[in-house]
């Protein structure tokens, strides 16, 4: 979905998100958080998968409709000093894409999806990344299985151990948990963009917290990007 802001807005950065009004009635009531996918020529773009009530309504928005959005919100991906690894699961590519675009030809992209139809923006991502490794859960294209498989092999490889790179990731919670498990004790920096149900998006409702080594943190305010080693998985 492409959105042209009607009022002044600060320039959004990779990792940040927006709260989007999805419908025009009280049901769905709350705005939904979406990562910035692309920002160019003053147009904000969001990539979403139709999954629940909110995204069903979003799909019905017509060109020219005026909806309320709040943003940019949250923190940003820390800038990589050089090359980096990006691990995307499913629609997580929406958040990582802006990072690939900001740092072209720097990323080793590990991209997993359920099947070949859900490998969104693959061609564009291939162009922006240095190297790409793809998996699909059902094996419709490329390697069958979860993306954490090849990621683990790569991290354990001699090439990587010699020159470790920071990792940036966004995707479903089970994937993030597995990455945290793989990296546990490795000392590697891994920045994960978390997804959580939100009511306000601006730090007031305390609804979107995640448990960290220093207590509950708001995904909307202290996040959405966290160092994965600080997260305590429930």
């Amino acid at each position, binding site marked *: 979905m492409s959105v042209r802001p009607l009022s002044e807005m600060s320039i959004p950065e990779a990792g940040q998100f927006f709260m989007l009004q999805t419908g025009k009635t009280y049901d769905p*009531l709350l705005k939904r958080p979406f990562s910035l996918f692309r920002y160019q020529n003053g147009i904000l773009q969001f990539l979403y998968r139709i999954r629940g009530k909110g995204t069903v309504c979003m799909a019905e928005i017509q060109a020219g409709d005026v909806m309320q959005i709040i943003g940019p919100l949250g923190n940003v991906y820390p800038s990589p000093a050089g090359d980096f690894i990006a691990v995307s699961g499913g629609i997580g590519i929406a958040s990582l894409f802006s990072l690939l675009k900001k740092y072209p030809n720097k990323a080793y992209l590990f991209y997993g999806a359920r099947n070949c139809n859900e490998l969104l923006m693959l061609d564009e991502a291939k162009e922006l990344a240095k190297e790409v490794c793809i998996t699909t859960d059902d094996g419709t294209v490329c390697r069958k299985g979860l993306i954490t498989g090849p990621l683990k092999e790569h991290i354990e490889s001699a090439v990587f151990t010699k020159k470790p790179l920071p990792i940036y990731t966004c995707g479903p919670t089970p994937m993030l948990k597995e990455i945290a498990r793989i990296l546990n004790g490795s000392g590697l920096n891994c920045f994960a963009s978390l997804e959580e149900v939100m009511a*306000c998006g601006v730090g007031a*409702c305390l*609804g979107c917290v995640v448990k960290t080594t220093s207590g509950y943190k708001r995904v909307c305010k202290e996040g959405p990007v966290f160092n994965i080693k600080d997260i305590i998985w429930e």
Partner: protein
Amino acid sequence: MGIDKTRAKNKEAGKSKPNLSVEIAGLKLRNPVMTASGTFGYGEEYAEFVDLNRLGAVVVKGLSIIPKPGNPAPRIVETPSGMLNAIGLQNIGVHAFIKEKLPFLRHFNTPVIVNFFGDSVDEFVQAAGALSNADGVHGLEMNISCPNKQSGWCIFGTDPKIMSEVVSAVRTRTHLPLIVKLSPNVTDIGAMAKVAEDNGADAVSLINTITGMAIDIRRRRPVLANATGGLSGPAVKPVAVRMVWEARKAVKIPIIGLGGIMCANDALEFLIAGAKAVAVGTANFVNPQATIQIIEGLESFLDEEGISDINDLIGTLIV
């Protein structure tokens, strides 16, 4: 005065701006629109969206003498035209609030009402005492929809005896205007409002959230980690309006009405039912500028109706 007479009188008064100011428990509010506790943080979270100087009052998130970490996630879930929350009263504690958050609020010329609670009567009294001595706190709102550890975690606000004990104990400890926020999870809201009044409350606010539940049918588990949560949003508004009307008949002290107010028309229902002020809660999440839009909407309604003073509208329900 009948509706037509009021209109006629005010039309004569000419086109000057209608008076929106109201007085609650000795607090002069520039308009009757306040924020609902727990939906506006400590004020600063919304300061970039809302000029706090335009609000009737700011009611900050509930505080306890001992900071609380809150509940595990998930803490919120959207339901039809509403949401359930089980934040678990997470807060930084009274002392950190006074030191870190209150200085910011002192920059504004808007009354600050601090919502507070405790696990015991003693904790309520301690919190009220500390807040009453703080510069920049203009009123207190007691959240009695929390459990009392001395009575087997029974909710303060659903048992008239425990409620009268805690309200009277806090009353002796504070000189500030004292608002008691009533729980709607009772059979007779009027009787509970009367308990608050009889034990020294200067005003009551109602309703707090209605206890509810949502279930994940695939996992056969509650959606919220806490199993149950408080329902808020437009879904609860008719219940809240009814309860304000019932409380109005039961007590003489002012009522602050809240529960699902999204727009000026919603606020007007509460005012007509007998609330002297209203609080806007979940609407802040949906639209950060909701409070301001409601204030502007109230003013236009008074203009349209030819009413020069909002106080002439309060409690004018004809049944």
